[in-house]
């Protein structure tokens, strides 16, 4: 009995740690995706139909590393290597909705990462230009995006310079936050356009910053409340 218990415990522990490698079927992933939209996104106030549809359509599990697939639809960011993360689903939806993308929009994304945000945008807008500085990530993203979309253009380069040939952009999504906002990006933003930037350390994206370029070219910014959770309420 004792031996059986020990063996059973060992098997259980082994299963626990390798359970991340289990794969779901396509239908199961779709169910997970719908549940994700229902419980993590629309329930938190995202109401833009195009955004919600895009989140339902893009198979997020294809944009995460194999070992993370099981967690692809969980309410959290996931590591994708090179110190980068794929944003939490809600963040992706929030960033998409806040820039008000339309069918004719031309969007620039800085930091393709896994390619997931670009895929979500590609479901909605006319053209998505995405730049990734880390070559292996950029190549993976290009391969995945090119297989699915013909309106996404991937460039492996330093995002600092933006993509001048295709400027101005209706909106810019900066997924890899930097300590400064590169002046060329501000320059390449259309007047009246919006730029959205997450601020936070890996796995902790609590704050988003919206940069708006007025019709007069004046720039203003707004820190959006921690979008992942309910507003921070102080004890008093």
């Amino acid at each position, binding site marked *: 009995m004792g031996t059986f218990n020990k063996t059973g415990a060992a098997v259980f522990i082994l299963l626990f740690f390798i359970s991340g490698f289990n794969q779901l079927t396509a239908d199961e992933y779709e169910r997970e995706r719908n549940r994700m939209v229902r419980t993590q996104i629309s329930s938190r106030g995202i109401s833009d139909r195009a955004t919600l549809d895009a989140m339902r359509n893009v198979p997020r599990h294809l944009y995460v590393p194999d*070992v993370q697939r099981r967690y692809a639809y969980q309410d*959290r960011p996931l590591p994708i290597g090179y*110190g980068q993360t794929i944003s939490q689903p809600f963040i992706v939806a929030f960033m998409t909705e806040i820039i008000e993308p339309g069918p004719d929009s031309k969007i620039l994304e800085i930091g393709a990462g896994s390619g997931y945000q670009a895929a979500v945008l590609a479901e909605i807008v006319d053209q998505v230009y995405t730049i990734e500085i880390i070559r292996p990530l950029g190549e993976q993203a290009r391969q995945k995006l090119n297989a699915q979309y013909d309106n996404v253009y991937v460039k492996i380069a330093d995002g600092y310079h933006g993509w001048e040939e295709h400027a101005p952009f209706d909106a810019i999504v900066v997924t890899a*936050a930097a300590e400064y906002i590169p002046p060329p990006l501000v320059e390449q933003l259309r007047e009246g356009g919006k730029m959205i930037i997450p*601020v936070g350390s890996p796995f*902790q994206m609590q704050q988003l910053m919206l940069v708006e370029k007025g019709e007069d070219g004046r720039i203003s910014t707004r820190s959006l*409340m921690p979008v992942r959770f309910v507003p921070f309420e102080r004890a008093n």
Partner: protein
Amino acid sequence: MRPMTRLITGLGLHSAALIAFQLSLMQLISIVQWHHFAYMIISIAMLGFGASGTLLALSRERLLSASGWLVPLLMTASGFFMIFAFRITRLELFQFDVYLLFVERAQFPVLAANYLIYFIPFFTGALAIGILFIKHAGQIGTYYFSNLLGSGIGGLIVLFLFGNIYPQQVPPLIGLLSVTAGILSSGRRHILPNISLGAVSVLVAIYLIAQPGRIETSQYKGISQAMNLPGAEVIYSKPDIHGLIEVVSSPALRFAPALSLSFTGEVPVKKNIFVNGDFFGVVPEYKTGQKAHILDYTTQVFPWEIGKPGKVLMIDAGEGATLAQAMSRRPKHVDAIIDNGGVVEMMQTVFAEHSGGLYLHDSLDIHVVEARNFLASASDKEYDMIVLPQQESFGGSAGINALQENYSMTLESFSLMWDLLGPEGIITVSTWTDYPPRTSLKILATLTETARNKGIGSPVQHLAAVKSWGNITFMLKKQPFSLEAVEKIRHLCEELYFDPLLLPGVTLEERQRYHMSDDAEFFSIVDRIVEGDKKVIEDYSFMISPATDNKPYFSQFLRLGNIRELSGIYTTDQIPFLELGYLIVVVTLIQGTILAFIFIILPLLRLRKSHRGKGGTLLYFGALGIGYMFVEIILIQRFVLYFGHPVYALSAVISTMLIASGAGSLCSGRLPAIARFPAGIGLIITLMLLFYTFFLTPVLQSTISSPLTVKVMLSLLLIGVPSFFKGFMFPLGIRYLSSYDASQTPWAWGINGSLSVISTSLAMLIAVETGFMTVMTVAVVCYGIASTVFAFRKNFFRI
């Protein structure tokens, strides 16, 4: 050499290797991960000491009878494992990442494997020492002396090695010390296995030293992120006692923290300096006559614009860009305090030309010293501006600095700074904005309280702050801000798209003209802090009350009592990322306690034999385990300020304590093993520590400006005398115990070891929550208990 002499010499060598291995591991893990994670691993590894006691208790006779061949072999084996333990953990199979621990289950078995790999050399090494102590309980004083002396020297050896060879080369080298100890200790009959293992060890060590490779750091550390950039390369690398200094160059590395959105120029490419893999600063490119600096387009320009500072003091000015900005303003004189001498040397030699001779500038004096030490001894100086370094990091640092003692940011420090200001002087400090706001509010609370403590009735007239989308710069002025200065700030805000946060007469509309926030309460909290409303500080969900010398943890914001509330707001899985550093210490303590119980206490409890008077053994050796470590931590903390060099203070305190204690244990052999000696000496130590509780700080403060020789002599006295007496306690206890029930001695070794394991994190937790005074008080109580146990031995030992 006589067998006993060889054994004692071997013990000293082996003890030196063990402590040096521990310190080198801490350094290496700090480079790969973070410094407090190093404590976590070390606490596990140190369990080896406790677990060895357990094994001794369970198999005492068998181990003692085999000690002739076993002790040398254990020493050699311990050295053998030391040589490659770290390199094994860097194999892909065993690489873990502290960030991923919270998001990837697969990290846990990898972490467990790391624990095991580090545990083995400590366990085998400690077992050898434990057997020797018990086998030679009659001469424990001599053996304990060798152990402590060796440990003290080991601390000094590793310090020397850190400054001269790469950190990954240190363990193979010091592992050879234990191998030598093993061979030295083995008699002719048992030398063959030791020689064989020794030969393999030497070959492995030579290979690892000759092929050190580069340490692969966590993918989330600054240097890893920089190395991911195109064309990134390490162009300079040098081991230093302050840490491994590396400079990375890439055409994509730029520096312009929270740059104004009105800036339309080119952001300059900069080489980045990393110390132990963490961003330290940039290599500035200073040009004489340079008019504008990139930081002039950040909030850090304001203090320079509202006055013409002639004499400037820059605290912790390692970040080169800040220094370049200061020099571009052409002040008459700048005193810059940089505690990392390695970086200063690098900038004055290798990068002297690249940085335009900035660090060799005629009007710049660089002081390689801890800032508080400089402030305390600079009472004859007067400054127009005192600049503190930028606090926190972009997007928040997730509390990784929470347990970093920061004496520059305490109330006492600001008080000294205020006293050094000229009539129009100004203190300025900037911070990255974090959410929820913590750092900015704590800075404000500190500045406000400083002003009030200096008799300023209305701090609002003396305070100004400007915020951008990512930064806030605070300014505290000795005189109220003039109308002209206020207008200048307003005008510059308009030009750079910044908003005044604090300014005499500021309006709500002005405060969010360019940068708005959904956090509507922030401004009212700011106003209430400046008005002196203590309740707003007390009620805030995070700790934002000013840091003090007693609790110098400026970056510690977590209130343990509020974890449940914060979990409700952010969900539990986010709490680690809000304040990771402090939580790691709490987890370390809990984990250490559980593991110490499971692997040390529980097996001992299962011993069928009944031990008389186990309570006395538990209390006495437990109290010694905690008391010794607590005193060590307090002394390090006090002497860091006194000497101004944390690394030197650390090594001076540890080495003096161990060597003095070793001398004490040697002398203890002259005393008979009767109860009144530990009782009496325990009382002497208790009284001494009680004296230190109240008078150590004033004594050190009053002599901080004395010549170095006086300070060194005084330190030797203050650290050495109580340590000498403390050296008596353990061997006297062991001898007493072995004289009436020898089977309890492994107990003593195990209990002492297990409580030492948890005492580092316990001391840290107590210091963060209630301050260093409490840690000292606990140490006094511990030695009081140890004395009492022997004073009333009949009640405790049931003799």
